[in-house]
């Protein structure tokens, strides 16, 4: 085998290893609160906000606090670094990204999934009078 081919092979292999490592490292797994509590790793949990438990922005710590349940109805208190996310109230479901620590889920990010706002519904047609 030519030297050139070997070198190219090494470079490509190196890149693939780097890529695979980054990929696996940054894969933030979707899970539920039970698992999140158990592992303490950075995870994503999909679920919905529990409206009647209230929500609160604490200006001293600059954190937004609320309760949510995941797809298996585990409930967790969530503290997000930052203010209430866009479309929080209307979100049909939310995804929180962070880790479970000291009985609270510390979220670095909250993604809000909104109802299909790009297509209208039949009932809305009537309303536009």
């Amino acid at each position, binding site marked *: 085998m030519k030297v050139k081919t070997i070198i190219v092979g090494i470079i490509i292999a190196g890149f693939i290893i780097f890529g695979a490592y980054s990929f696996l490292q940054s894969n933030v797994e979707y899970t539920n609160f039970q698992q999140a509590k158990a592992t303490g790793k950075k995870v994503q949990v999909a679920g919905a906000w529990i409206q009647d438990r209230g929500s609160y922005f604490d200006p001293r710590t600059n954190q937004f606090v609320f309760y949510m349940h995941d797809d298996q109805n585990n409930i967790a208190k969530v503290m997000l670094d930052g203010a209430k996310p866009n479309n929080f109230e209307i979100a049909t479901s939310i995804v929180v990204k962070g880790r479970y620590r000291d009985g609270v889920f510390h979220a670095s990010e909250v993604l809000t999934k909104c109802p299909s706002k790009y297509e209208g519904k039949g009932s809305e047609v*009537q309303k536009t009078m």
Partner: protein
Amino acid sequence: MIGTWLVRLAFASALFSSVAFYLTLRIKKGRWAKLARLSFRTSALFVIAAAALLLYLILTHQFQYTYVWSYSSTDLSLPLLVSTFYAGQEGSFLLWALYTAVIGVVLMNYARKRGYELQVMSIFALIESALLLMIVVKNPFEFVWRSFPGQVSEGFIPANGRGLNPLLQNFWMVIHPPVLFTGFAAMSVPFAFAIAGLWKRDYQTWIRTAAPWTLFAALALGTGIMLGGYWAYETLGWGGYWGWDPVENSSFIPWLFAVAAVHVMLVQRRTGSYVRSTFLISIIGFLLVLYSTFLTRSGVLGETSVHSFAEPGMGIYIMLAGTIAFFSALGIGWFLLRMKEMPKVPLHRSYLSREFALYLGAMVLIALAIYVLVGTSSPLITGLVQSKPSAVDISYYAKGSRLLGIFLALLIGIGQLIWWQRSDPAVLLRSIAYPAVGALIGTIGLIPFGLRDAGIALIVFAAFFALFANLVVGFRIFRGNPRLAGGSIAHIGIALMLLGFIGSSYYDTNQTISLPQGEPVKALGYELTYIGYRETEHEKYAFDIKVQKDGSDFTLSPVMYYSEYNQGLMRNPDIAIRPTHDLYIEPQSLEQPHGVNPGSDVTLKKGESTNLGEYRVTFVDFDVDRSAMMAGGMPSVAARLSVSHGEKEEIVKPALRISQSGMERIPARCSDGSAEFQIVTMHPDENDPANSTVTLNVKIGDEATVSQPTKDVLIIEASIKPFVGFVWLGTLVVLGGLILSIARRSREARGQ
């Protein structure tokens, strides 16, 4: 009705045109060629007519058409009204088809003069047919009663439409999508040329004809992408211009392929080698455009992307997947068929040659594209492999792009300094020396300003190196013949952008700040005072913040408003642009009393204790208030809690009372009011009292006394973005360079 038929006829004539071009090659009768040309032009006319019709319907507010109703309304300004054309799926496909048709008409003449017409147009018309087929299926000319059967009576004409999403109601909506779609449409051209080359068994000369078009695709797509970035930065207010979101990535990846294609084309033209690479890159680049369309429109990434588009349904999913499969089979299949015949021309160049540097550069671009592609497709991949889809964290992209960015920048620098064919190592070292030293000085010079990270320093060094190398060489070329300086200028722009990227993202300092009205707050080197808010237009509110620094002061007024359409709070930032940085302020919320603090929940068994902060809480027992019951009142049950705080210990009894209106929760506090307890639920176990539990909600310390601010407090997120201006400046420079290059390569193609 007319619209639907225009689209169908456009589709039919485009398809016919493709077949006719093919037949001309088979049957070799000039008549078929004439028919083919005529039908392509006819198809283009039909598309233009359909587009004009849709525009007319929009401008005349004909809301009985579902598409017009869904995206426009009577209160939009003219430019925005026009932009609703491409606000939805059907319209944006129509726009894409329109651009493809227009490009096709020009391409037809261009290719004919160079003997490529039949093959190029057969493929190109096929692409146009595929696009039109989407529109036939997802028809923008459908009536409301057809779209919502049973809910809307036939012939009903709504008085107004839903309107355009407020997020889209600004200047950028008018230009970003059209430019972007021009780029998508343009990417079909190199693909068509590549297939034509394979078809004709012409493995070398097709490049000269295709080069200016490939550059044009890079120009249009790149501009479209940066317009999107600037839009996000200036209007959308999440503090950045690039989020590595699937929608963004999926236009970035084909762009990388287009640029890589340009570079390998240059090498192949000079040396005749890398035949296969050039074909593959041109073909796959277009396939990636289709793949990107699939990712963003099929709903497949729905959960994991912030850009959550509506579910378009199985129809579009299958059509898009089918289109990708078809053109992949066509492109890759044909390539494999011809692969054995292709000339294998060895490079015959030293590794120290510009040809090799160009090739390396193209490979790094491809590597970056693949890296981003894998990350973007992560939900698909993980969904298949481990049945639970997950997205990659944004750090994945940062890692890869920084690493590859170093190599890219170094190659951009070296590529300009190295000679064609072969460089004398000593001479090369000497020419590298000056820019390298300059880069070193520049990098070191930034250390006092906060440059600490070794990896970042490498990127900065590489970017400076690329900048200085291209400045030196570019200046020389410009003095000789300005027309040839396109490449250098474009690379200068890239280097500037790289520096801007590092400055504004890595060194972005960002803080959430509470500004009580009228009180100056020091942050990020500025003094900020929230003055008050005022209504600007249509229930939008501007929040004035006085900003002071070193004697100068100005006002920034970010905006917040409630959108009925989105049923949520919308935020627009305000930005103070300075040469060395931007001060970026995004409003978060206006806190007027009050919010409900949820406290903490805890469940205790009888006799169990828990620690909450400095408090130790023990659930002792239930207390049933029999006296109230016996007096004919409502029964209530209390939870007797033993609460110890420091030295004190006391009994606290929150209760639940059943009243006529349901269950009432009666909270109880510590004697000093520093903690509040409330019963959430209780589960008394009659069989085994020891198993009875109560779930309490506890608010401790300040949480118990909801502090009522006497003033309004504006919560903002403020950040300093160093050298973000370089990103925009760099973009403009790249555009200039690309335009020059297109002009140069067009001239070369003509002189062929």
